C-alpha cells in the first residue's frame, strides 16, 4: 500500500493510499471548522443542502440517477465531530473500473461530482434554493429529535452534554434543535462562501490509482476553490481534571424497561503528551476487549448486563463507559464499573491479561489496512492531531506497552460525571 500526501492548495491536502486489493475505492472530502454551539447546526446542514443538487444535476433525483449509472457509486454527506473540530463533507464509495464493463472512468466522474457539490450548487440569484434549505432544516430537526430513539447513544450524548456543559465538546456534530430552527437560506449561502474560503480541507483517497494522479485530477476539478484567509486556530481544549472534586450525577426519565448507565472520565495526566498506542491498550484492558475487566466482571461474572463497553476520544482526552442494565441495578453496576478501574490503578493486571490486551489492540490496528473506510477514519483523525503514524506502526507500539504504563494511565484518570437514563416513576 503506497502512502502519498500532498498539499493541493493552501491548507487543502490529499492523503492517498494506492492498493489493488479492493473492488471498491473510497474518496472523502472534509472541511474542518471549529465546533461551536452557535454554528454547529447551520454548518451541519450544509453538506445536505449541497447534496440536493448542482448546476448540472439540479435535483436529488438527477444526482442519484447519475450515481446509479456509475454502477451504484455512493456520495453521501458526512458530518462528524473530531474532538472539538467539526468535519463537514462527503464520503464516496465506488467500484474500481477494472471490474466494470467498458472501463467507464468512475473515479474521474466521482471527483468531478464531489467538486461540483462543493463549488457549483444549484442556486437561484446566487442564493441556495430556499425550498432545499427549508426541507433539509426540517430533516435536521427530525434527526436531532431521533437521537433519543437510540437509547445507548442518547445516554452517552446526555452524559457528555452534562459533563462538558461549559466546553464546546458538549455540542453534537449536528448542533442543537434551537440553533437548527434558525437556519435560513440567505445566511446559509453567505456562511457557506465564507466557510469554503477560510477553512482547511482534507481529501482522502484509497484505491488503485497512484496518489500523484489523483492529486492532479483533484487540482483540476477544484481549480475554482476560493482560498482566503485560513482559520489556523482549529483545535481541541483538553481538560485534564474532573470539573469538581467529586463526580457529578445526572439522570433523566424515559418510558423504558431497561436502564442505560453512562459514566464519563477525564483521562488526566496522560493527555499532557498523549501516547495513543498506550491509551488504546488501556481502553482495551478496562472495557473494550472481550478480555477486559468490564466484560469479564460486570457481564460474565455478575451477569449485570449484556452490553458493557468503554471508549476513548483521544482528541479530547475523555473516556466513557456504557452499560444497559436492570432499572434497579444502578448502584451495583456503577460500583463494579468504578471498582474495576481501581483494580487497574492498584496494578492488578496479570501477565495473561497484559499479553491478551496487547495482542487484541495490535490485531485491531493491523486489520485497518484491509478496510477502506477504517483507513479513512484512521487517517483523518491522525491528520487532525498533526500525526502521520500508520496503523501498522501504531500496532507495533501497542505490542510493547508495559504494565507500569497502564497503571500510570489509570492513576491519572478521574471520574467526572455519571448519567442514568432510567424508567418513568410508576406513581
Amino acid at each position, binding site marked *: 500500500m503506497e502512502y502519498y500526501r500532498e498539499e493541493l492548495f493552501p491548507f487543502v491536502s490529499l492523503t492517498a493510499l494506492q492498493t489493488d486489493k479492493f473492488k471498491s475505492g473510497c474518496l472523502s472530502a472534509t472541511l474542518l471548522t471549529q465546533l461551536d454551539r452557535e454554528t454547529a447546526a447551520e454548518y451541519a446542514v450544509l453538506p445536505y443542502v449541497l447534496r440536493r443538487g448542482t448546476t448540472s444535476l439540479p435535483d436529488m433525483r438527477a444526482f442519484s440517477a447519475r450515481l446509479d449509472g456509475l454502477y451504484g457509486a455512493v456520495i453521501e454527506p458526512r458530518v462528524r465531530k473530531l474532538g472539538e473540530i467539526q468535519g463537514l463533507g462527503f464520503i464516496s464509495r465506488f467500484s474500481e473500473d477494472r471490474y466494470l464493463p467498458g472501463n467507464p472512468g468512475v473515479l474521474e466522474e466521482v471527483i468531478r461530482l464531489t467538486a461540483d457539490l462543493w463549488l457549483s450548487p444549484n442556486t437561484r440569484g446566487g442564493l441556495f434554493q430556499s425550498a432545499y434549505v427549508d426541507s433539509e432544516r426540517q430533516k435536521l430537526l427530525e434527526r436531532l429529535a431521533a437521537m433519543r*430513539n437510540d437509547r445507548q447513544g442518547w445516554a452517552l450524548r446526555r452524559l457528555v452534554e452534562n459533563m462538558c456543559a461549559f466546553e464546546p465538546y458538549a455540542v453534537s456534530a449536528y448542533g442543537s434543535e434551537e440553533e437548527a430552527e434558525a437556519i435560513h437560506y440567505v445566511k446559509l449561502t453567505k456562511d457557506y462562501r465564507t466557510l469554503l474560503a477560510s477553512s482547511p480541507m482534507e481529501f482522502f483517497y484509497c484505491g488503485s490509482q497512484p496518489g500523484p494522479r489523483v492529486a492532479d485530477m483533484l487540482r483540476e476539478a477544484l481549480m475554482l476553490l476560493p482560498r482566503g484567509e485560513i482559520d489556523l486556530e482549529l483545535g481541541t481544549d483538553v481538560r485534564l481534571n474532573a470539573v469538581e472534586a467529586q463526580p457529578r450525577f445526572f439522570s433523566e426519565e424515559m418510558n423504558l424497561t431497561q436502564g442505560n448507565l453512562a459514566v464519563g472520565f477525564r483521562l488526566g495526566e496522560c493527555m499532557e503528551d498523549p501516547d495513543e498506542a498506550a491509551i488504546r491498550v488501556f481502553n482495551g484492558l478496562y472495557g473494550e476487549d472481550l478480555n477486559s475487566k468490564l466484560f469479564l466482571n460486570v457481564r460474565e461474572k455478575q451477569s*449485570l448486563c449484556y452490553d458493557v463497553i468503554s471508549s476513548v476520544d483521544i482528541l479530547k482526552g475523555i473516556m466513557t463507559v456504557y452499560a444497559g442494565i436492570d432499572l434497579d441495578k444502578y448502584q451495583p453496576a456503577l460500583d463494579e464499573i468504578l471498582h474495576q478501574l481501581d483494580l487497574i490503578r492498584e496494578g492488578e493486571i496479570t501477565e495473561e491479561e497484559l499479553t491478551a490486551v496487547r495482542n487484541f489492540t495490535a490485531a485491531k490496528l493491523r486489520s485497518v489496512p484491509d*478496510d477502506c473506510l477504517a483507513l479513512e477514519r484512521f487517517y483523518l483523525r491522525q491528520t487532525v492531531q498533526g500525526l502521520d503514524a500508520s496503523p501498522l506502526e501504531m500496532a507495533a507500539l501497542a505490542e510493547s506497552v508495559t504494565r507500569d504504563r497502564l497503571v500510570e494511565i489509570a492513576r491519572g484518570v478521574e471520574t467526572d460525571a455519571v448519567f442514568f437514563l432510567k424508567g418513568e416513576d410508576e406513581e
Partner: protein
Amino acid sequence: MTRLDYPALGEVIFDSVLPNGLRIITVRKKGFRKAFAMYATRYGGADRRFQLDGEWIDTPWGVAHYLEHKLFDMPEDNNALADLSARGADPNAFTSNGMTAYHVTCTDDFYENLRSLLTFVSTPYFTPESVAKEQGIIGQEILMGENAPGYVAYFELMKALYAHHPVRDNEAGTLESIAQITPEILYHCHKVFYHPSNMVLVCVCDADPEQIAAIAGEVLPSEPGAVPVRDYGEPETPFPLERRVEKAMAVSAPLAYMGIKLTPAKDGKALLRQQLTAELALDYLIGPSSALYAELYDKGLLGRDFGTDVDSSAGTLTVLLGGESKDPDAVMAALTDRVGLIARRGIDPASFERCRRAGYGRALDRLDRFYSYACMLSQGAFDGWGVGDLFELLKEITPEEAADFLCEAVTPDRLALSVVRPER
C-alpha cells in the same frame, strides 16, 4: 475440491464437501492480512419443533439463541471468547430465525484460530450453574430489543404478516420462555442441529483451502449425521394476518415498517432470482433515483433512513420497506398508487438499466466486506446458490419480471404496515 474462477470479479473460490457432510467455501483473498471464518448451522430461532427418530419434539422459545451464548463455555472453566481474544482474534456470533453463526476475525495465527472456532462450536459443555448465570445477561439483551424502536417495529410487522410461522417471533424469546431452558435441552438441540451435515464453514482469507479442509476434517466428527425435519406449521397464505398494527413507545416520530410475504421458490437459483427481482423492482419503485422517492422526500414523508430489503429466512421470503415518517399511511398509499401507474404504463427500460448497474456495484462492494460476504455465502449455501449465480442473474433479470413482481405483490391486500408511534 472445486476451484471456481471469476476473472471478471477478480475472485477465486474453493468449494468442497467433507465426507462428514460439511460444506466448506473458501474465498481466496490475496494480499489481505485480515482473515475471517464463519461456522454456521442451519438452526435458528424459528426451529422450535422438529422430528427426531420419527418423534416430534417441542422446545422452548429462545433455545437456539441461548445455545449460541453458552457454546462459548468450555470444560475446565475455559471460555472460547477469552481464549481467542487473548491471541488477538475477535470472536463473535449471532442468531437469526434461520441460522446461528459463529465467526472469528484475526490478522495472525489463522489456522490456530480456525481450530479453536471449530472446537468450541462442536464441544457442548453446560452446567446448571452456567446456564442459570446466562439468564441475567440474555434477559438484558431481550430488554435491549424491547426498548429499541426498530426491533419492535420489525417484529410487530412480522407478527402482522405471518399467521403462525415462527419467524413472526423474535429469536431470543422472553424472560419467561428462557427460564425453562435446561442443560439437557441445550445438549439435545446441539446434538440434533450442530452436526457438520447441517452446517457450512465459510472462510474469507489469504489461506490454503486444503489446509482449512484438513483442519475441519481433524477437529469435527467423521461420520455424516441426519439433517432434522422441522415443522413451521401449515403453509402461509400470501396475505397478511393483519393489515395494520400500531404500538406506542418513547420515540420522536412515527417509525413505519411495511412488509410483504412472498412464497419462496424451492430451487435455490429460482429463489435467488425471486429475491434479486424483488430488490431491483423495489429500487426502481422507491430507490433514491425514483420519482416516488423524490416526491415523498420533498413532501417530508420520508428521509435518508428509508430503506428496502428482501430477506430469506427459515423457509420464508419477506419484503421489507421502511423508515421514519410523519404519515406512514400516506407512504403506503403512494406506494400502491405508483404500482398502479407502473401496471398501466410499464417500466422505463433506461431507468431499470440504471438500477441494474447500481445493483451490480453494490454486490461488488460486498466482496470487500468480509463479514457481510460470509453471511451472504452462508445463506447461499443453505438456500442453494453461489456468488457466480448472483452476478449472472443480475444480468439476466428483465424489466418485465420486475413489473410482474410489483403488480402481483405490492398491492393493498398483500402489504402490512407496522407503526411505532410516539406516546401521547
